[in-house]
């Protein structure tokens, strides 16, 4: 379970990137966080992973305070970044092995690694190839494989579909659905409204550091999610126009 309570983040340059954000992702739930560029999605993730400290508010992972016990909370979360970069001079399998060991999984065999790489749709001949020869999408898949291997209760993904071909992207959605069925909490930041419609249990739209809309599956399937999204973005444009005029 991932939880953000009255979470605010003001960067050193004074920019308020998050403004009293409240968020809760329950076990067995896929949460899609939408929002324009610069809305604060990555900031939220960085806060959950304790890469940066919140200005105010609180975050918990499985009920454990992220700021107070960062090392403990890391046990219960795996992460796929926007642009997965791994050790270029290691093969895909070696990267998997390293991170699995680091995450405490020491009894995995080559077969386990191959299986998980197959499950994320990486082609067989790439398993033992050096990662520096991989395309962005292939790296993304290895990153996903690492997250799956860790088998943590919570999975955080930052724009994981960027760089994936349509087939791989829909495979990813299937994998997320499987993880949800195993009871994981999944937070996925994305611009991909189309994918949201296929698997998301709940969708939030962020704007300028605030959660401006929150709908569950029935709600956003009734309305047209695209329209809702554009509606909220439109407001922003109008707001900017108004600013310009005055």
């Amino acid at each position: 379970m991932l939880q953000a309570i009255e979470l605010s983040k003001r960067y050193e340059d004074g920019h308020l990137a998050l403004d009293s954000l409240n968020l809760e992702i329950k076990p067995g739930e896929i949460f899609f966080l939408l929002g324009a560029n610069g809305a604060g999605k990555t900031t939220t993730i960085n806060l959950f992973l304790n890469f940066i400290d919140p200005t105010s508010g609180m975050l918990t992972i499985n009920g454990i305070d992220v700021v107070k016990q960062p090392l403990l909370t890391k046990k219960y979360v795996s992460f796929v970044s926007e642009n997965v970069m791994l050790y270029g001079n290691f093969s895909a399998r070696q990267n998997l092995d390293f991170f699995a060991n680091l995450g405490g999984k020491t009894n995995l065999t080559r077969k386990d690694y191959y299986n998980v790489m197959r499950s994320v749709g990486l082609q067989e001949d790439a398993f033992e190839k050096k990662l520096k020869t991989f395309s962005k999408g292939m790296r993304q898949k290895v990153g996903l494989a690492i997250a799956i291997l860790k088998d943590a209760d919570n999975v955080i993904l930052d724009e994981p579909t960027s760089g994936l071909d349509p087939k791989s992207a829909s495979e990813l959605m299937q994998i997320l659905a499987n993880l949800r069925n195993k009871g994981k909490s999944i937070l996925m930041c994305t611009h991909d409204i189309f994918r949201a419609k296929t698997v998301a249990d709940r969708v939030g739209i962020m704007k300028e550091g605030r959660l401006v809309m929150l709908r569950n599956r029935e709600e956003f399937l009734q309305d047209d999610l695209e329209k809702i999204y554009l509606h909220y973005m439109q407001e922003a444009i109008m707001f900017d126009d108004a600013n310009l005029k005055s």
Partner: protein
Amino acid sequence: MIWLIAKKDFILNLTSSRFVIGFLLCLVIIPFTMVVSVDGYKNQMRVYEVDRAEALKKWQEVKVYSAVRPEIVKEPEALGIFTRGIEGNMGNSLTIRLGEYPLLLTGHAGTRDNPLLNAFFSIDFTTVIAILMSLLALVFSFDLFTREREEGTMKLVFTNGVSRSAFLMAKFLGVFITLVPILFFSFMLSTLIVVLNPAIAFSSAEWLGIILLFGAAILYLMVFILLGMVISAWSKKSSTAIVVSLLAWVWLLFLVPDIAYYSSQSVSKVAPYDNVLYSLDELDRVFREKTDEKWGEIQKQMGLDGIGHWNWSGGYDGYDELYGCTWETNEFHRRLNAWREPARLDNADKKWTFQKEWLDGLQRQERTRQVMSWLSPSEIFQQIASSLCRTSPESYLNYMQRIREYRATLIAYFHGKKLFESFSYFTQQDPKTFLTIAKTQQMEEEGFFDSKNFKVPPYWEGSYYLPLNLDDVPKFTFQKQNAAGSLKASLGLVVGLLSLGIALFLVVIGVFQKYDVR
């Protein structure tokens, strides 16, 4: 977890081009340097053997005590192969005289036969280690953090519950276990080259010295790895880190020692030795004048018009040897020497005050240079090394001090045996065979010296006598410092290097706690 990350870095390092290049550099430079050094040592050794044989020959030819001039030939330091220190700047021998304190060694300096042949490459093993290891340490550590950050792997590592201090330790360990084998290999290679030379044999103390040198090199390596880590933790980008690292490297290895060298000369000035020589010449002149006065005085005391000699050799340095002279002449020489030699010793004492002041000045200047260059870890390492290899200025000055003490022992022996006031100081002729002037005049009147029938008595010639048996005379022995002694001498510096390492470690911990992993 620490070990896991360290192992990962180690494996990645092994396959990196920097490792291969570093390894090859050692493989090429170290044998080359060692061959040059070993060759230099063997040359020194040859010179030493020749000079020592010559000194022994001279010692065995002495027929009167006034000719006792022990010649000290310094044995080249075998460990000088590793750390030349000031060995090449110094002479290798010195003649002990009554009229002078031993100041610095003279004789053959350096190792090359041809002084015109300018060596284009003459750095020793320690210098190579100091340069290569610091460079490798920085090359492997400057991007320890920046690269993981730039490649985005740092985020993933930190989502796996790795604490910052564990990560830091692991990163340090990764570089350390990459470079220690290179360092070890360098030491093995260099000792192998030495050991393969049948002409060179190390004592156990020297072996221990090499091991301690290896320990110091490890410490030195750690300091530079930590320095690279501090730079890496301070930089966001690898490109900045490498520029800063290289600047730091040039500054620490080349500029600091150079600045220390030049500024020590202006901070702690030493007058040229010519000034000292001027005072010494003045004292010697006064001494000679007094000797001339005393000469006349004794002559008057003895009621002699002049001093006639049959067979006399001597010199201003106190050497005095005569045969076939009258009793009066012998007695005159005895009385003169009884006054002159103690006076010569006094004069040497006076001269020493000037010389000591100059020597202290040199020492102060060197000390200033040393202290100033403590800003550079490589200089600290070099100072430890030359101390362990007994080629430091301190070892040299200690050696000179032993020689001066030996001179005092020798003088005490002369005093104890009352040699200055004895005939044997200048002749081996039996005093019973000394003829008085009256007696010779009588013999002349009797026609004893007529060229027809006069035959010179053989005991009137120096060649009649065998050299003196000098077994009783104290010999110079030098107890080489053992490894414990050299360790003690360099302990302060070792502690200094260690504290520097600890300080850098604390800095890198402090800086890295705030490192932005994104």
